[in-house]
């Protein structure tokens, strides 16, 4: 479906990588998506459950419009998209050229198993003699050297772990499809020269390496080594530092002179480490410390071997590069004794806990202690492990762990029917996201999760295999409590390989190692054309990563568009297929005998007879998995002139992505081609009863044949789209969205209810990191106003809208009452919100009580001079984080820190007290919290049950707060009391939502389609949300969201016409009783009742063909194309006929 010139490389195929890749692919760009790991999905592969639903839901990221271009099954199992080339086990190793025209070099790690041929039968696993810890289960279980990197992938291919493989060759021998090639010869050709004056060292190394399949030569002195080197053929030199005569460094220098590309690894004792390090400066690649650990030595050589072979390097040109390499979890073992991790088996990281709890984990989902498989009764979560810790170079908050732990605690409660005691030890519970606060309260109130505000120092051995935590509670009482399991909420770190990537890209990094981005952007680096996506940019949960990934895709898209990509098409949308609508069904079946293997297991003659009896034409082929096999099948099918095609092969999912090509080749629309899995009935281990296998295969095939015979041959319709966007709200989010879309060449109408653009930006003068919102406002507004594609409608309101994605008609009312009607394909709602007016703490009674915005404004105008102040008190969470406004406004803690630091900077003597509940200094904001503490701002925690008291008398304010630690009241008499009152959504949101057929949540913020996976979309297709109308967020966060929303909108705007899915619902109006049950049942909001025509209408683009409507309809007035009752009946008949 690629229809635009321009392509991008996305590095990292976790959530954010997939999101960025999909965003660009859906827009029509070609994307190469690579990942170092042998499977896709990043961290999410290992997580079964996600907040807030405590389910998965990743599949919701898949395209809704034009969904046939991508896979439509569980995304954790894998995915494909026509415009995305996916390369697993692949690294980016070179970038040259310039933005829009990068030459990138990729390196593929060989998996030794041909994925095209591997049918996942597991024959190799049964014979593999090696067992190693399985990283998928965080080392809690073991696997073989040939294994499935992600056990639930579909299709799933085995890979060989070369480090663990003993090269016995058994797997090669038993593989029924010849998919495994261990490349044993190549290894033998890899010659290692070992140079050491001690014979015992040389001998043992030789033995280890030869066992590992390498060729080894030895030299006992530098001179001998150089002589052997001069004969050539040596791939790697293992070189002792300290030798009599010519020492290691000298040999190194000479050797490198002889062979400048020679790979050299030094061998050293502790005493000469410094020399070894020096040697690395003159060309050694690495060093090994004596005494040697044989495993580490062999691993190092294997590693060098693989790097040197440069297997499967590939170069090509891309316009933009998106780095979505994700994050690494802090490894507690990397720091000295973090909470007894690795000392006690029952101390696990949050990811390990996740695997422990998983149905595919070591205990099948039962909560048992890793050490002794005893039932777990008490679990403690320790927060901020590797985060918020200056010792560990982590002056940041990892942002995700609080929610992660609450989720894990809830799951423990649910899995155990509330029997497990769950305690979370924390410093601040950072529930700053949408609905996080209520989630936390639910955990505490409804599930009895204990929240203990205390950081634990260390984990010690307790009674009966338990672990003991000693801690002081908030009131100073000491406790020593035993737990069965301690879960370390490990924070985020830049991922492994960041150093290389940073160097490769030439991008600067923050002191903690994250990539630096430009002001007011989380995705643009200083290096043009290179963007960061998702958590790789630092410290984000799924929802924010998805938003961020959209923003990165948007930035890349803008660049590609500027390169002329966006508007010029390079390929046709749809190939021409034969019109078969009027022909009677004629089904041809091509069956793969798997090179005779299947033909031996089953009676293909009988099967063919059976199918022929049903009126099918049957062809037998061999190895349809190979190019030649498929070509051969195409040829016979083309010649048969059949108008329905049935393929009998293995792994239907593999063919799903080939169907379009196949269809093109035989001129038949892919939805008229069906793939039936005939391999599974003959899997090894299922018995060799030939009659059973024959019966099962025949049954599978005749079912599919029946379905094909009854299929409605009308091809899916394409729908014309209006390529114009409507953006409601002229704040920074709205302006950013409008500009983003207009920059891509599409017309935008920007509607603003007030008389000027800019919204809240008018009230902000500084950001915490020192940038100027005013300058941003000025530049953005100017760009919007002069953009030829943007029509700004000031003092205008949306009063009506109808239609569906691609074809909305919306009516505006202008200030004078004049109306205007606009046709548009998408709508973005960016109507924002504002600072809440406080109702409490004496606001309004006295001039000395102001809000954070007011303080900022008064400071800016000089109405308040820091030098005149002696004492300022700020109260956080005013009117928020409790019902009815039970959410965190996310920006107030940052605002308080900003204003407090400003005051301290301009008057170091001013006393600033911040009364807070939990400082929401998430992500990199933490460093400002540290700064503020260091600057002497006094932070006093308060609890909702004992809020500060404010009294005013004669214009003077006194604030009394209870310090929970000392259990004492602290009386303050500030010159200024500043209230952080939080954000409320704009009062028009509700009405506007009604007009566009979308909803708001109970707090009045827009209700997105799905909090994590579709954060900028509404359930109603074609309508998007961004900015603080969706949820409170900072300027940069709002802009990122606006960019993500524009990017989603662009995927629709980028086409003149678009295709509905081949499987969609239809209404047989003559049968319909208009009970509207189907509307209720539709999870995509794709159905509505047209009262005027008294019919049920389906939005074909929004319909995802799930069939809920058909299920709920009693008389099949609602039907699903391709799955009509008659088809299913005949499939049932076919199935029963063969099995009885």
């Amino acid at each position, binding site marked *: 479906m690629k229809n635009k010139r321009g392509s991008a490389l996305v590095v990292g195929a976790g959530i954010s990588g997939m999101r960025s890749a999909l965003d660009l692919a859906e827009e029509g760009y070609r994307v190469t998506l690579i990942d170092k790991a042998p499977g896709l999905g990043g961290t999410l592969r290992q997580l079964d459950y996600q907040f807030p639903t405590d389910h998965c839901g990743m599949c919701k990221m898949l395209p809704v419009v034009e969904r046939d271009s991508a896979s439509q099954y569980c995304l954790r199992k894998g995915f494909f998209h026509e415009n995305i080339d996916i390369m697993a086990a692949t690294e980016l190793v070179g970038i040259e050229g310039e933005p829009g025209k990068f030459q990138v070099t990729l390196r593929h790690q060989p998996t030794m198993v041909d994925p095209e041929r591997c049918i996942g039968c597991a024959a190799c696993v049964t014979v593999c003699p090696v067992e190693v810890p399985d990283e998928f289960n965080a080392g809690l279980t073991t696997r073989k050297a040939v294994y499935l990197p992600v056990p639930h992938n579909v299709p799933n291919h085995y890979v060989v772990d070369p480090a663990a493989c003993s090269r016995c060759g058994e797997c090669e021998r038993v593989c029924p499809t010849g998919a495994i090639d261990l490349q044993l010869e190549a290894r033998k050709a890899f010659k290692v020269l070992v140079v050491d004056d001690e014979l015992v060292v040389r001998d043992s190394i030789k033995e280890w390496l030869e066992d590992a399949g390498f060729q080894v030569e030895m030299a006992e002195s530098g001179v001998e080594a150089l002589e052997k080197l001069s004969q050539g053929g040596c791939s790697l030199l293992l070189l002792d530092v300290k030798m009599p005569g010519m020492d290691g460094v000298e040999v190194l220098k000479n050797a490198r002179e002889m062979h400048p590309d020679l790979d050299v690894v030094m061998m050293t004792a502790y005493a000469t480490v410094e020399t070894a390090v020096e040697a690395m400066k003159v060309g050694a690649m690495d060093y090994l410390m004596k005494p040697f650990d044989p495993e580490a030595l062999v691993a190092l050589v294997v590693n060098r071997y693989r790097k040197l072979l440069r297997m499967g390097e590939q170069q090509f040109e891309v316009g933009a590069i998106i780095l979505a390499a994700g994050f690494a979890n802090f490894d507690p073992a990397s720091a000295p004794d973090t909470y007894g991790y690795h000392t006690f088996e029952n101390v696990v990281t949050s990811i390990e806990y996740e695997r422990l709890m998983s149905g595919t984990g070591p205990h099948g989902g039962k909560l048992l202690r890793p050490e002794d498989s005893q039932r777990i009764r008490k679990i403690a979560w320790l927060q901020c492990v590797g985060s918020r810790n200056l010792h560990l170079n982590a002056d940041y908050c990892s942002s995700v762990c609080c929610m992660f732990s609450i989720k894990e605690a809830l799951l423990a409660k649910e899995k155990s029917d509330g029997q497990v005691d769950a305690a979370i030890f924390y410093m601040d519970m950072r529930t700053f996201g949408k609905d996080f606060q209520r989630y936390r309260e639910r955990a505490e109130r409804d599930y009895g999760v204990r929240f203990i505000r205390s*950081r634990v120092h260390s984990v010690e051995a307790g009674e009966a295999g338990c672990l003991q935590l*000693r801690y002081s509670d908030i009131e100073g009482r*000491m406790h020593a409590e035993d737990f069965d399991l301690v879960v370390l909420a490990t924070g985020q770190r830049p991922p492994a390989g960041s150093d290389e990537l940073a160097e490769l890209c030439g991008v600067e990094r923050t002191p903690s190692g994250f990539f630096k981005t430009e002001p007011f952007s989380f995705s643009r680096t200083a290096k043009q054309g290179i963007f960061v996506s998702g958590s790789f940019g630092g410290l984000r949960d799924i929802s924010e990563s998805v938003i961020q990934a959209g923003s990165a895709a948007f930035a890349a898209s803008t660049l590609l568009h500027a390169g002329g990509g966006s508007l010029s098409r390079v390929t046709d949308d749809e190939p021409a297929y034969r019109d078969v609508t009027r022909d009677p069904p004629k089904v041809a079946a091509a069956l793969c005998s798997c090179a005779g293997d299947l033909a031996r297991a089953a009676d293909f003659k009988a099967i063919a007879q059976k199918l022929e009896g049903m009126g099918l034409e049957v062809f037998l082929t061999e190895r349809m998995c190979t190019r030649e096999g498929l070509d051969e099948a195409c040829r016979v099918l083309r010649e048969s002139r059949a108008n329905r095609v049935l393929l009998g092969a293995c792994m239907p999912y593999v063919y799903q992505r080939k169907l379009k090509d196949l269809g093109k080749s035989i001129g038949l629309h892919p939805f008229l081609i069906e793939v039936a899995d005939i391999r599974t009935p003959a899997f090894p281990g299922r018995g060799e009863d030939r009659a059973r296998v024959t019966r099962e295969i025949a049954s599978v095939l005749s079912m599919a044949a029946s379905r094909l015979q009854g299929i409605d041959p009308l091809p899916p319709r394409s729908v014309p789209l209006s390529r114009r966007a409507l953006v409601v709200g002229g704040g920074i989010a709205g302006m950013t969205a409008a500009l983003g879309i207009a920059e891509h060449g599409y017309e935008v109408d920007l509607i603003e209810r007030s008389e000027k653009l800019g919204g809240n930006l008018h009230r902000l003068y500084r950001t915490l990191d020192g940038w100027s919102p005013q300058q941003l406002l000025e530049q953005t507004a100017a760009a919007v106003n002069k953009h030829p594609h943007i029509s700004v409608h000031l003092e205008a309101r949306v009063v009506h809208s109808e239609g569906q994605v691609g074809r909305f008609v919306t009516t505006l009312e202008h200030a004078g009452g004049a109306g205007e009607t606009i046709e548009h394909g998408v709508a973005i709602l960016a109507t924002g919100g504002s600072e809440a007016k406080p109702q409490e703490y004496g606001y309004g009674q006295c001039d000395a009580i102001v809000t954070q915005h007011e303080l900022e404004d008064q400071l800016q105008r000089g109405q308040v001079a820091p030098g005149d102040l002696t004492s300022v008190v700020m109260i956080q969470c005013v009117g928020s984080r409790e019902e009815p406004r039970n959410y965190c406004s996310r920006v107030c803690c940052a605002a308080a820190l900003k204003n407090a630091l400003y005051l301290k900077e301009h008057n170091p003597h001013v006393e600033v007290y911040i009364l807070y509940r939990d400082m929401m200094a998430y992500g990199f904001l933490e460093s400002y919290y540290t700064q503020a503490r260091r*600057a*002497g701002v006094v932070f006093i925690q308060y609890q909702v049950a004992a809020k500060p008291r404010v009294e005013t008398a004669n214009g003077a304010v006194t604030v009394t707060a209870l310090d929970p*630690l000392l259990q*004492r009241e*602290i*009386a303050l008499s500030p010159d200024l009391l500043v209230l952080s009152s939080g954000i409320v959504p704009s009062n028009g949101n509700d009405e506007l939502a009604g007009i566009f057929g979308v909803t708001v949540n109970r707090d009045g913020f827009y209700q997105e389609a799905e909090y994590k996976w579709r954060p900028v979309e509404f359930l109603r297709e074609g309508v998007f949300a961004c900015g603080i109308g969706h949820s409170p967020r900072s300027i940069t966060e709002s802009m990122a969201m606006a960019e993500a929303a524009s990017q989603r909108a662009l995927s629709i705007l980028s086409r003149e016409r678009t295709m509905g899915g081949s499987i969609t619902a239809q209404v047989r109006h003559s049968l319909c009783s208009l009970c509207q049950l189907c509307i209720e049942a539709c999870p995509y909001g794709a159905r509505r009742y047209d009262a005027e025509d008294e019919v049920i209408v389906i939005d074909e683009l929004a319909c995802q063909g799930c069939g809920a409507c058909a299920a709920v309809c009693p008389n099949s007035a609602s039907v699903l194309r391709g799955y009509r009752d008659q088809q299913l009946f005949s499939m049932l008949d076919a199935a029963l006929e063969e099995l009885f």
Partner: protein
Amino acid sequence: MTVQTQNGPHEAPDPLAAIGENIKACMQCGTCTGSCANSGAMDYTPRELWRMVQLGLSDEIFASKTFWLCSSCYFCTLRCPRGLPLTEAMAALKRLAIAQGKWKEKKSTKFYLTFLDNVRRYGRVREMDLMTRYFLSLKNPLTPMGFTPLGVKLMVKGKLSMQLPNLFSAGKLDALYRKVREVEGRS
């Protein structure tokens, strides 16, 4: 009880301020307390003590015995997420208490002062002399009894240096001590 914070930046610098400066970044997470082997014997936990330092509750701090109970094991310092020099701050509190004569803990203070005097005199510790002077300084005839058994044991083993006290000549490190006092007095 209510804590009144003093408004006004222009008062004399609080002697506690220097210590407060070092632990300003403390966020009362409680890590220190969790590790403190002696917290059970303390009247305020370290977590509370640092809070009191932040709030400038000088009188109560020096009335407490918390910092005297610090045995310098450095566990708290090791794991303080803010990297604060907590053990040093405990020592600084001892120092301040001694300097201001706010010693509730007579034994500790006397011991430290006697010890350093011993070093000033001889350059190295002369244990017999040190113990004799320490017990004299306590002016408590019963205190030495607590140590007698060990002292006797040590003497029997010949482990106490028996060099005779040199009461009248100048001390070995007089000059160095004098200079330290001079430099410290300057700031």
